[in-house]
């Protein structure tokens, strides 16, 4: 026995066996199994011996845990359990502050986790409720670059795309094109602006919208039919059973009658395709020749549903060929422009699977990651509180541990006790957390722009996740006391020779980590707020204050503007009135995409009136303004921006023809540049400024009315505008907004994120400070004798307070140092979304550091100062 080349039992099984802590037969079993192994080895061979060794180990494991252990502790198992509970509750009650800090902190952390779980779940299950989600695809135009990488995807497609695809590519079962417009809708009451979707009849077959009444098969066959949601039905008819009723929609100049053919339930919020009113696409103004077979006008979104057995991957090549067949000319242009080699694809039609559309192109999965990160950070901070406070109190608990061990407790029983305590606290926190989450939910919905709801009965995943969070938190939070405290030797703890006053390295690094996390969130808050403020205060190059903005929806802007000028133009509270094509400050203005000297340049066109530059308070830097008296100015003159001159390399633009546009073919081709305005941010600050020019040419329509009013008597002025509107356009109610309000809607998404980060950092620093408060209280109480002696020896209050503050200030400083580079990196990533942005500066870090220091110091100060004022006679007398 014991020779080196002797076969040995399987290591893993052996290790498994050695794990049977505190089992009566453990020692015996090891040598028994060894002996058996050797007997079997010599009798039956190694393989058999090893197999039976495993079998034995497993059988021991299975039986031991269920029978032996229970019988073994049968005598005092349940009474001990009762004792654990009693001791736990006593400890909780005796130290109310710590209990509060732990429970409250964990509850907030868990509430955050619950909310963010809902958010992420919503994001990940987008469109999953559509039964056919695995075979519905959105057809997108995918453009490749010179190196074969994807340049960009255009989700819109030409009108003939879907029907042609069904004819030419086998396996396409159904299709729908989808397009949204805003129209006035009327029953008997005042017309209301609604968003109206145009679609093909198959849409109701492809997507699983719950039909309440009507026939989904035939609902959209007639060009005058409309499918509406329950909400719309209730809004206009006061009831939902409205199939056959008439609804007026003003698509063009007049209201047309539509017959309700079906009513559908509200579509879930996490559906990419949503509608309120749905009418056949055949009714759209563009759905007529010559657009019907134009392949170069991308207007409608196109969804197709494949037949069940068709594999989408197999359609890749047919689709590329299809693209070349129908968009070959454009492919050729692009191939030359981007110098794409002959053997590479220029563009293709790409199938974007429905369940992936949301995360691929609408929302950024990054948001889910960031939110999860924030939730985990906050939960971690709360867990660290639990741990550091346990460590701080461990000198008290260690006596209990020693006592229990002396009277015969095994280590695993103590582990059971401490982890049990952690789970109990987590359980209480969880209940509180769920209540808190319910309370936060409306706020969170407002912040995240979703409408989530806790539905524990239907959404069992939430329950599972909550339970999982609880177990995980309990496990992490309880790990220190369970693993370390239970390992103490009774002799050292009872003699009191164990040093554990909350000042060890582990505690310190945990506290530093907490502050690092808090500081990261605070720096992010500061940078985000600063950037958004930068956007608001940016000199846009024009004045948007007190401008009433009225979208006209296909009314003649010039006529209305003239009517308004005659009626109220002279009023003291009206500063100026003008009609314009596109209002400034929005993404995606109208314009041209042109080729110039081998570069593709987007030109934005603003259709204006002659008073526009004065109205917007823009600055003319060269040439002259439009003149209302010159007839030629109406069609043959433009005013360019500085960027325009720069991009097209015009040194002396005045008097020259507009470059890159062809006279006769392009509406503004051949026009003469008569002036140049200073650059102004007509787009949002996410984008680089594009070249632009102003024109008075009415061909593209003056679709908006702008009225600048004086800030005084705003109420009356608006009422007056309303009256005037009603005299000239009695059939449509006035719909107005303020230009500056509207402009900031572009940034609403980032405002929301800034707010979420802001609130999170508040909670993070709050929980961290709760922990700090607990910790400093512990430290002070454990060093109170030292304080007494120091005072006797002549220390001042300030010195004593400084003694305690110093340690924690150091930790906060370390936290700031750790957090800064990470926050710097993360914030630069975010700022890159904006073409015009601030830079993350030392000021942000300093400010965050000062904020955290001040908060931390004021948390500490109460206890530290109290310690400074203690009477040494009191603390030293009892020994």
């Amino acid at each position, binding site marked *: 026995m014991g020779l080196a080349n002797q076969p040995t039992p399987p290591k893993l099984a052996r290790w498994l066996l050695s794990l049977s802590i505190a089992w009566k037969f453990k020692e015996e079993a090891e040598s028994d199994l060894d002996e058996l192994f050797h007997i079997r080895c010599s009798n039956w061979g190694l393989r058999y011996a090893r197999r*039976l060794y495993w079998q034995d180990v497993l059988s021991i494991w299975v*039986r031991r845990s269920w029978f032996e252990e229970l019988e073994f502790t049968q005598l005092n198992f349940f009474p001990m359990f009762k004792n654990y509970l009693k001791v736990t509750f006593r400890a909780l009650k005796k130290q109310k502050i710590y209990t509060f800090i732990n429970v409250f902190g964990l509850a907030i952390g868990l509430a955050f986790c619950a909310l963010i779980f809902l958010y992420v779940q919503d994001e990940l299950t987008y469109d999953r409720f559509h039964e056919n989600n695995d075979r519905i695809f959105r057809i997108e135009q995918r453009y490749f670059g010179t190196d074969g990488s994807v340049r960009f995807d255009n989700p819109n497609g030409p009108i003939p795309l879907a029907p042609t695809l069904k004819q030419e590519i086998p396996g396409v079962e159904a299709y729908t094109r989808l397009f949204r417009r805003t129209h006035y809708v009327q029953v008997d009451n005042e017309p209301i602006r609604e968003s109206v979707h145009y679609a093909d009849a198959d849409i109701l077959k492809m997507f699983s919208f719950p039909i309440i009444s009507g026939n989904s098969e035939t609902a959209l066959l007639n060009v005058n039919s409309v499918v509406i949601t329950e909400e719309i039905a209730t809004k206009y008819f006061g009831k939902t059973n409205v199939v056959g009723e008439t609804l007026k929609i003003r698509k063009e100049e007049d209201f047309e009658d539509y017959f309700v053919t079906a009513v559908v339930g509200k579509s879930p919020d996490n559906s990419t395709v949503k509608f309120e009113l749905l009418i056949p696409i055949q009714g759209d103004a563009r759905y007529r020749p010559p657009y019907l077979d134009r392949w170069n006008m991308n207007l409608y979104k196109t969804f197709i549903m494949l037949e069940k057995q068709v594999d989408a991957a197999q359609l890749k090549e047919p689709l590329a060929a299809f693209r070349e067949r129908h968009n070959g000319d454009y492919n050729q242009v692009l191939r030359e422009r981007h110098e794409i080699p002959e053997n590479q694809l220029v563009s293709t039609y790409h199938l974007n699977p429905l369940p992936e559309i949301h995360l691929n192109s609408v929302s950024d999965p990054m948001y889910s990651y960031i939110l999860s990160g924030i939730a985990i950070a906050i939960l971690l901070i709360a867990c660290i509180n639990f741990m550091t406070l346990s460590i701080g109190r461990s000198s008290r608990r260690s006596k209990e541990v020693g006592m229990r061990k002396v009277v015969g407790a095994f280590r695993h029983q103590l582990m059971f006790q401490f982890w049990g305590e952690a789970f109990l606290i987590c359980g209480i926190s969880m209940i509180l957390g769920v209540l808190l989450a319910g309370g936060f939910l409306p706020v969170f919905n407002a912040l995240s722009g979703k409408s989530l709801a806790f539905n524990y009965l239907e959404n069992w995943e939430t329950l599972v996740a909550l339970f999982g969070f609880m177990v995980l938190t309990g496990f992490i939070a309880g790990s220190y006391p369970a693993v370390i405290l239970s390992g103490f030797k009774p002799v050292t703890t009872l003699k009191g020779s164990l040093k554990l006053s909350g000042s060890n390295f582990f505690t310190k690094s945990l506290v530093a980590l907490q502050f690092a996390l808090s500081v990261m969130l605070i720096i992010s808050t500061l940078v985000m707020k600063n950037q958004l403020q930068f956007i608001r205060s940016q000199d846009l190059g024009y004045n948007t204050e007190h401008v009433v903005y009225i979208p006209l929806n296909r009314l003649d802007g010039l006529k209305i503007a003239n009517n308004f000028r005659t009626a109220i133009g002279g009023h003291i509270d009206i500063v100026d009135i003008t009609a314009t094509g596109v209002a400034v400050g929005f993404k995606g203005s109208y314009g041209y995409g042109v080729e110039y000297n081998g570069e593709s340049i987007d030109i934005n066109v603003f259709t204006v009136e002659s008073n526009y530059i004065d109205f917007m308070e823009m600055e003319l830097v060269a040439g002259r303004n439009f003149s209302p008296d010159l007839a030629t100015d109406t069609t043959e003159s433009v005013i360019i921006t500085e960027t325009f001159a720069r991009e097209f390399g015009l040194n002396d633009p005045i008097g020259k023809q507009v470059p890159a546009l062809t006279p006769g073919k392009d509406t503004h081709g051949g026009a003469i540049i008569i002036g140049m305005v200073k650059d102004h941010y007509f787009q949002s600050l996410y984008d680089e400024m594009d070249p632009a020019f102003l024109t008075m040419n009415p061909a593209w329509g003056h679709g908006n009315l702008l009225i600048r009013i004086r800030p005084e008597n705003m109420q009356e002025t608006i009422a007056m505008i309303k009256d005037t509107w009603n005299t000239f356009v009695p059939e449509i109610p006035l719909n107005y907004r303020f230009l500056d309000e509207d402009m900031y809607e572009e940034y609403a998404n980032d405002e929301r994120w800034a707010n979420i980060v802001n609130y999170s950092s508040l909670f993070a620093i709050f929980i961290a400070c709760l922990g700090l408060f607990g910790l400093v209280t512990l430290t002070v109480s454990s060093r109170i004798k030292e304080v007494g002696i120091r005072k006797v020896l002549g220390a001042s209050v300030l010195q004593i307070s400084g003694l305690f503050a110093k340690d924690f200030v150091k930790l906060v400083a370390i936290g700031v140092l750790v957090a800064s580079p990470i926050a710097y990196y993360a914030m630069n990533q975010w700022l890159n979304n904006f073409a015009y942005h601030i830079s993350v500066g030392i000021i942000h870090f300093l400010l965050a550091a000062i904020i955290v220091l001040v908060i931390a110091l004021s948390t500490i100060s109460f206890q530290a100062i109290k310690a400074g004022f203690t009477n040494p006679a009191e603390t030293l007398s009892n020994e």
Partner: protein
Amino acid sequence: MNRSQKIGELEELILLAIGGLSNEAYTVSIQQLLESTSGRVISMGALYTSLERLGKKGYATSEMSKPTAERGGKSKRIYKVTYEGEQILHETRAVRDRLWNQFKWSPAWG
């Protein structure tokens, strides 16, 4: 000691094996004996559980032997059948005998 404690089949076999091994009855030898006589491979988990039960019911006792060289200097637990253990074996045997005597052997099976 509660006399009405029932005894299972495996427990009975183990008890018999202990008796048969007299002073050499420890886990490995019990296991080996049962394996060679009955052909059944009894897992150690089952063996420990049964031995523990037999001890609880008072049918077997055990004590540690002196450390032996063959087990790498470790001692082994030697089992003995108690008076109650022998009684219950008798009882079980008696019940079986009575039933055996009443058994009507079918002539058809020879």
